[in-house]
């Protein structure tokens, strides 16, 4: 019992050290998630306990950078959740169409697969020329990869299925060129995506937008951090703006539940009340 308590304390000291030294704040992340990732790193680097990780993190920037990659969420895919993207086309695009220009904030975009998915939809719906997608993440390494738009073709079969099932109107293969084991996303998809470093935990509002899309990021946060980030989204959205969350995320435990109407309850699409 006691040794478990010690490791809990060690983890909270480690997160404090990472925050104070590097400014990245994981203190309100899911403890089960953090615990798993830290233990993984401990095994990989042959360290014996979490205090050794702390000592190494403070002195060794390369190691700190590796740990940062462990703790941040970089797993994503194109058109993840076909039903969500279908609903986006059916219920959200008609609203976006009424604006002379459209600003979208894709928060926590990781390596960018979903930002490209959004660009594809906007192009197919004839809206892309008047759209700006701000795709942000705090993980610069992931952002750089997103900007390059080069992905492994290992997943392409799944992406193709996701795309078709989500209501895609073209051949998915028309959006990239293949190069050995990789695919390179078309330049025309990149033109209106602005990739920017933004940390949901520590940074503030940077633009007024018509749509906020933040999927499967908040599940990693505790309730009070979720609430804080929801305030950020609320303040960024215009009245009548749209909020899209992951299929297991909601507003129920936040202060903002009453401030939106549900556009699609199952797909977690909300509209900010006027």
């Amino acid at each position: 019992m006691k040794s478990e308590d010690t490791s809990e304390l060690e983890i909270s000291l480690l997160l404090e050290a990472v925050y104070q030294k590097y400014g990245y704040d994981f203190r309100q992340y899911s403890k089960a998630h953090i615990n798993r990732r830290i233990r993984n790193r401990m095994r990989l680097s042959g360290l014996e306990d979490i205090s050794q990780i702390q000592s190494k993190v403070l002195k060794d920037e390369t190691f700190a950078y590796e740990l940062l990659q462990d703790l941040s969420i970089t797993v994503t895919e194109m058109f993840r959740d076909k039903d969500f993207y279908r609903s986006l086309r059916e219920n959200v695009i008609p609203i976006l169409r009424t604006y002379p220009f459209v600003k979208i904030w894709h928060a926590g975009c990781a390596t960018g697969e979903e930002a490209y998915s959004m660009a594809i939809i906007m192009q197919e719906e004839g809206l892309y020329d008047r759209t700006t997608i701000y795709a942000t993440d705090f993980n610069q390494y992931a952002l750089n990869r997103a900007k390059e738009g080069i992905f492994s073709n290992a997943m392409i079969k799944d992406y193709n299925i996701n795309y078709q099932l989500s209501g895609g109107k073209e051949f998915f293969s028309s959006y990239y060129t293949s190069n050995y084991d990789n695919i390179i996303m078309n330049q025309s998809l990149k033109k209106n995506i602005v990739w920017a470093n933004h940390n949901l935990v520590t940074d503030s509002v940077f633009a007024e937008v018509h749509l906020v899309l933040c999927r499967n990021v908040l599940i990693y946060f505790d309730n009070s951090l979720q609430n804080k980030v929801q305030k950020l989204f609320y303040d960024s959205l215009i009245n009548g703006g749209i909020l899209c969350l992951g299929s297991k995320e909601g507003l129920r435990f936040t202060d903002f539940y009453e401030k939106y109407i549900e556009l699609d309850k199952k797909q977690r699409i909300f509209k900010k009340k006027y």
Partner: protein
Amino acid sequence: MQYEAIVIGVSSGGMMALKFIFSALPSDFHIPIIVVQHVSTHSDNEWIKLLNDKSNLIIKEADEKEKIETGKVYIAPSNYHLMIEKDKTFSLTIDERVNFARPAIDVLFESAAEVYKNKLIGIVLTGSNNDGTKGIKRIKELGGLAIIQDPETAESRNMPASAIAAILPDYILSLEKIVQLLIKITQPNFEFQLKN
């Protein structure tokens, strides 16, 4: 010993096995049960509703941050890993697949072991891979009880056989016997005897 939670890992052949267990457990079965069943990423949760219709217990998909309650059965949603926090609430993650699976049995079992320690029962059922082996090992290390479906009675023998090769299970039983044991264990006056 008063057990506080049961975790079940199951893969191919799992629908039949889960249906058997949950239609046999009585409505006053008071220990929460948390299940990872490998399903396709495109699977919806209709099968959970069907399972619920056949059971005396409340069977539902585990929600993010949901508090774990007695008398309920929680199933990991497809395409998410399911973890348990110290305060006995659920966390979901989209982290990379483990053993080619998301949800992975190991992820649930390892996090459950940390929280419930010797008050946890881990059960590995039919399946054709080796997910759950690391997790059941962790459950044993932290003092929990390990029940493995007898591979000879399982639709796919690999997963239980892999678990048996890695640990000294407390019980290796058919589904019928697993149900009987669970009902017996949860009786208030149950005297627990280790077989090994």
